[in-house]
């Protein structure tokens, strides 16, 4: 009997082209994504006189630098000449190399980590790369997906493979059942708060347990998206019928006999009983509340009912020093209730929380209510934007006084000009509350879409469950 293997082991083993005695493995990459920021890699490739070796395995999408307003004008809607240049440069690099390109005008345009699963480019068992740390998202469908820098991206473009050391494995099991109003975002923020932003460094995280299994595909994508915020090399979830149902019929998913073959292979992917992980962590999902970050690191998160912590009560000296600095930057006082924090604006969207379920959750809170602060919604893809409009969600946002924008990375990466002004406090459904992330001097509080919608209504951090209950 061969030793029982994890989901990760199975994917890794099937992609190793060969392994050197020193442990260095050459790994086949199934699918690679590029975006406007990939110009360094394309430039370096051209400088070497090389072209993309397997163009059919790379997919390009304009997301990081695209404007979210005035999109009927196409690339000219970008006010910044550098941004226009980068959007065009991506198109040009794709044309030269024969790479499929979902440009700013394409009906399938959207955030790379939203459209991959949406178009079925992302499938179970694949190795997937992109020059973006949130590539971990795709692991929610049972893939090994990870971000790289420009040099490794160049290597993938040139060779369709990558030299890697086998990472370690960490299983995070979330037991119990989530209380109403608690979402995938809250689960992953609670995991990061527990293990820390370096908690999974060097490891691939497999999320498991009844809570994870009970999440929708959208919720699973949110959880895996933020695996990188726990330091994880990747995040993944064993594929199941929910994944196969989600994928069936999507543009890049096999059909007919190939679908049957693929499905039979996918069903073999979940880890074997008794497979060993290098580390194990578990959490009681039943105890979780909606989570909110108070600091400038995603691990600086607490349940919405909590108070801003006193730095000296926190973990080690590093965490205490970080928290002291963070509270000064965030202009918060220890001991104050999180629900007493005033919010100046809100952003709903991003590769973390820009999917249909997220938009529906926010709309459910905003329906019949009015925004107390400026806010906008940027759907994760143009396809999703149309879907949301067909469901009437755009009307709910607009009637509440919330802007309904076009799709892109928008205020999460804040590369396209959608920045939060200095000193302003933003309730954001994105993934990073780093200093200056949403703009120089901007203050970010991460939370779920329903929680952000509640903050839009009240202008302060609010427990959405209480708002909906009329308390």
């Amino acid at each position, binding site marked *: 009997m061969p030793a029982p293997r994890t989901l990760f082991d199975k994917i890794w083993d099937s992609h190793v082209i060969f392994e050197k005695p020193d442990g260095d493995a050459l790994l*086949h990459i199934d699918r690679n994504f590029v975006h406007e920021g990939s110009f360094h890699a394309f430039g370096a490739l051209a400088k070497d006189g090389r072209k993309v070796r397997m163009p059919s395995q790379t997919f390009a999408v304009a997301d990081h630098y695209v404007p979210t307003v005035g999109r009927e004008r196409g690339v000219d809607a970008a006010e910044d000449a550098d941004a226009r240049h980068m959007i065009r440069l991506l198109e040009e690099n794709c044309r030269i190399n024969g790479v499929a390109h979902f440009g700013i005008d394409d009906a399938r345009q959207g955030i790379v980590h939203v459209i991959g699963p949406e178009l079925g480019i992302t499938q179970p068992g694949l190795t997937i790369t992109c020059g973006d*740390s949130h590539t971990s998202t795709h692991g929610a469908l049972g893939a090994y997906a990870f971000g790289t820098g420009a040099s*490794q991206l160049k290597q993938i473009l040139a060779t369709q493979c990558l030299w890697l*050391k086998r990472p370690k494995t960490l299983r995070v099991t979330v037991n119990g059942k989530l209380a109403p109003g608690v979402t995938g975002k809250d689960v992953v923020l609670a995991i990061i708060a527990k293990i820390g932003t*370096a908690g999974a460094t060097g490891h691939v995280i497999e999320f498991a347990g009844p809570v994870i299994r009970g999440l929708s595909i959208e919720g699973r994508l949110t959880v895996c998206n933020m695996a990188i915020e726990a330091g994880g090399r990747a995040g993944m979830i064993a594929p199941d019928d929910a994944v196969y149902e989600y994928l069936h019929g999507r543009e890049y998913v096999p059909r007919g006999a190939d679908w049957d073959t693929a499905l039979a292979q996918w069903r073999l992917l979940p880890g074997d009983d008794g497979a060993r992980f290098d580390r194990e962590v578990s959490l009681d999902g039943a105890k979780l509340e909606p989570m909110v970050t108070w600091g400038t690191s995603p691990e600086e998160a607490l349940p919405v009912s909590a108070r801003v912590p006193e730095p000296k009560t926190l973990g080690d000296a590093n965490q205490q020093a970080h928290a002291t600095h963070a509270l000064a930057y965030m202009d918060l006082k220890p001991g104050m209730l999180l629900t007493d924090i005033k919010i100046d604006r809100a952003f709903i969207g991003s590769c973390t929380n820009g999917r249909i379920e997220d938009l529906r959750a926010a709309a459910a809170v905003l329906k019949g209510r009015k925004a107390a602060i400026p806010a906008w919604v940027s759907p994760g893809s143009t396809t999703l934007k149309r879907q949301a409009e067909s469901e009437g969600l755009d009307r709910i946002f607009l009637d509440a006084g919330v802007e309904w924008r076009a799709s892109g990375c928008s205020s999460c990466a804040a590369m396209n000009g959608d920045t939060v002004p200095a000193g302003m406090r933003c309730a954001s459904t994105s993934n990073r509350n780093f200093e200056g992330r949403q703009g120089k001097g901007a203050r970010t509080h991460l939370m779920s879409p329903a929680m952000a919608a509640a903050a839009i209504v009240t202008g302060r951090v609010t427990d959405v469950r209480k708002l909906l209950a009329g308390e």
Partner: protein
Amino acid sequence: MKPFTTLNAVAVPFDMANIDTDRIIPVRFLRKLRNDKAGYDPYLFHDMRFDADGREKPEFVLNQPAYRNAGILVAGANFGCGSSREGAVYALLDYGIRAVIAPSFGDIHYANELQNGMLPVTLPEEICRGLRQQLQAQPGATLAIDLPAQTVTDTLGDAHPFMIDPVYKERLLKGLDDIGLVMEQLPTIETFEQAYHAQRPWLA
């Protein structure tokens, strides 16, 4: 790629953990072209280093005269966490930093340093703290890194051994290019791909 063997350079103490790559280089500079004429050095730690009017903040460590020619940075845990941006490495390298010593690194940033001939040195928390204390006591002091011997020698002459994967070590010592190493294996790769895609024709 420029090989890395030994480095004897001014080391700057950076007394912070969880330095994310957004801090190392703010996002608005990632669109900048980088070539022989225009490096990424002006953007390194930009928003910590300069005020709103672009003036140097005198209290920021890299703005202190003793550390201006630093070639080594000694940081806290989880250096380079967050975004995968390789611009963080370009900024460090173009400023003149060729090695970062820290208790731990963000995985992607660690790989990015190696890809550019920079040496990420992992040493225990207490040793990193000790090094920073020495460097704060003697601003402008140098540290000596010896990659073949895998040691960092501090200002007192004590050598601290560090671990590095032998594969990474050899690539740094020889300045090897990953793509060149792959292309040597092209026949093996093609054989693999044919067999792999034969079982999964929809992926070919």
